[in-house]
């Protein structure tokens, strides 16, 4: 029995294996992007997309109304579905050249290879987030609103001060939550939910007095899902700049300028306004809370 040489051999084997692992490390990302002809000139239908000749668009599941209809992003119904197809069209990808992909909110921002070209999922643009991902220009100006059950204390609120003693709820990772923490600064900590569905249940169950959601979602909740709830009011934009939803792209993606240009063009020719009219209700009758 000579354990020493055997141990050494084993150690050597491990080292060799690890060394092999190093040499097999994935190659830098730059080389495996299909280099399209004129990748930066935004030539219609010839962009450097993930799947050559096709545009892959991601969103989370479930896809909520009024952004998507019937949890089917590919249907072209619902505001974001319509916007996605309009952007695709502008980039030179017809309906048949678009692939939809389910990507959870959190996974859409993880570093590493992206499997999609852009993500459309009511993601608010912020300077802080720009450090992690690329955003297109904003395609929708968001207002945050408070929703409460009719007849509740929160439903009678006329100002932000009236909400201080209400237990408020919002979905994690949303600006709605930031509005609770930074604008209302309530006396009880906000209830934070993984999904808006759970926030809605909590509102129905009386576990929270009111929830904060964006205006279109609020209209949908009060109109279709919880009919005995009402929109108490909307918040003013923080810092004077309107909050916007933007399309999310991989950090440093070659497509960002092209997608941004497409969104800008759709805003200029009135397409975005038209789609808003079609899919999202007017924001007129929600009083502003000060």
């Amino acid at each position: 029995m000579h354990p020493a040489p055997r141990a050494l051999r084993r150690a050597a084997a491990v080292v060799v294996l690890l060394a092999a692992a190093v040499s097999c490390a994935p190659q830098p990302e730059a080389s495996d992007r299909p280099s399209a002809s004129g990748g930066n000139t935004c030539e219609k239908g010839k962009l450097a997309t993930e799947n050559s000749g096709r545009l892959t668009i991601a969103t989370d599941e479930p896809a909520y109304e009024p952004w998507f209809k019937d949890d089917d992003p590919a249907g072209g119904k619902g505001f974001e579905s319509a916007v996605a197809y309009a952007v695709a069209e502008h980039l030179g990808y017809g309906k048949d050249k678009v692939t939809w992909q389910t990507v959870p909110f959190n996974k859409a921002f993880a570093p590493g290879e992206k499997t999609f070209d852009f993500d459309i999922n009511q993601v608010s643009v912020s300077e802080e987030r720009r450090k992690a991902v690329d955003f297109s220009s904003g395609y929708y100006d968001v207002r945050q609103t408070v929703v409460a059950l009719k007849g509740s204390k929160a439903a009678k609120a006329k100002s932000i001060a009236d909400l201080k003693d209400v237990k408020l709820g919002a979905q994690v990772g949303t600006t709605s939550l930031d509005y609770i923490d930074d604008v209302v600064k309530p006396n009880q900590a906000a209830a934070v939910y993984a999904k808006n569905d759970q926030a809605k249940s909590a509102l129905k169950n009386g576990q929270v007095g009111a929830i904060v959601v964006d205006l279109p979602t609020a209209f949908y909740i009060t109109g279709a899902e919880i009919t005995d709830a009402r929109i108490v009011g909307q918040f003013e934009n923080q810092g004077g700049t309107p909050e916007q939803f933007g399309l999310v792209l991989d950090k440093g993606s070659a497509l960002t300028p092209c997608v941004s240009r497409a969104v800008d063009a759709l805003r200029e020719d009135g397409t975005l306004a038209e789609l808003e009219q079609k899919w999202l209700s007017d924001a007129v009758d929600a009083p502003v809370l000060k």
Partner: protein
Amino acid sequence: MDKAQAAEGSAEREEQDGGYVPSQRRLDRERYKRARARRATAIGALSTLVTGVVLYLVVVNAPGWPRTKETFFDWGYAREAFPKVLEGLWLNVRLLLICGAAVLVLGMLIAVARTLRGPVFFPLRFLAAAYTDFFRGLPLIINLMIVVLGLPALRLQGVTVDPVLLGGTALTLTYSAYVAEVFRAGIESVHPSQRAAARSLGLSNRQALRHVVLPQAVRRQVPPLLNDLVSLQKDTGLVSIGGAVDAVRAADIIVGRSLNYTPYIVAGLVFVALTIPMTRFTDWVTARMDRRRAQGGTT
């Protein structure tokens, strides 16, 4: 302690006084053993070093490392997340202590109910078995959903809607079923001769269980129980389904705002840091119990 050392010292002196000289062979043997031990340590240290260096090189030379470092190891976000995560962790710890105690009691009751003898106890045995089967099989997340979001929907008078209390209830239900099975296995692993001996000494069934069987059963079950306790500690975070902010949800909030994942790493490390002392403590308790039981060392 001092007494023992003194006794040892004196024994050694006596041996030396008695003119004991270790033989050359014994000295050689000891030297050889020392040399082997040194060599083993050196090899272990070297292989650890090599492994560490190779792993470090693999990670740092990965093409995506700079981006990964920014996203997962950002000092600024770690500093921001740490106090918030600790604040959330307080909820986890409270839930762990209260649910842990409730689970141990309830689990023990169910296990005893399952091991009762005699036909009269059949319904009790049946109910206990049904309970463990159902709650061990039911995914915890669904259990939480039903209890935290479904129960309040019934609008029962006097039933709390507090998501933390409801979540704690759900956790207790599921984990009692796990722990009951652990205890039952322990009870059944005590040799029947122990019971027989106790009964023959005139102890009643209950006394035999209480003084002879359970102490042995519980002692044997410490490692698996600790497993369940650590698992419970991590699952306490699931009460965030009801909107309560625990350590992981606190990290979630910052991640959602910034799209930087460092807070998750912070929360993960905090949980590990919480688990390690718990593990060491129970190891120490187990070792102490073993020492007491096996007066004179282990074989």
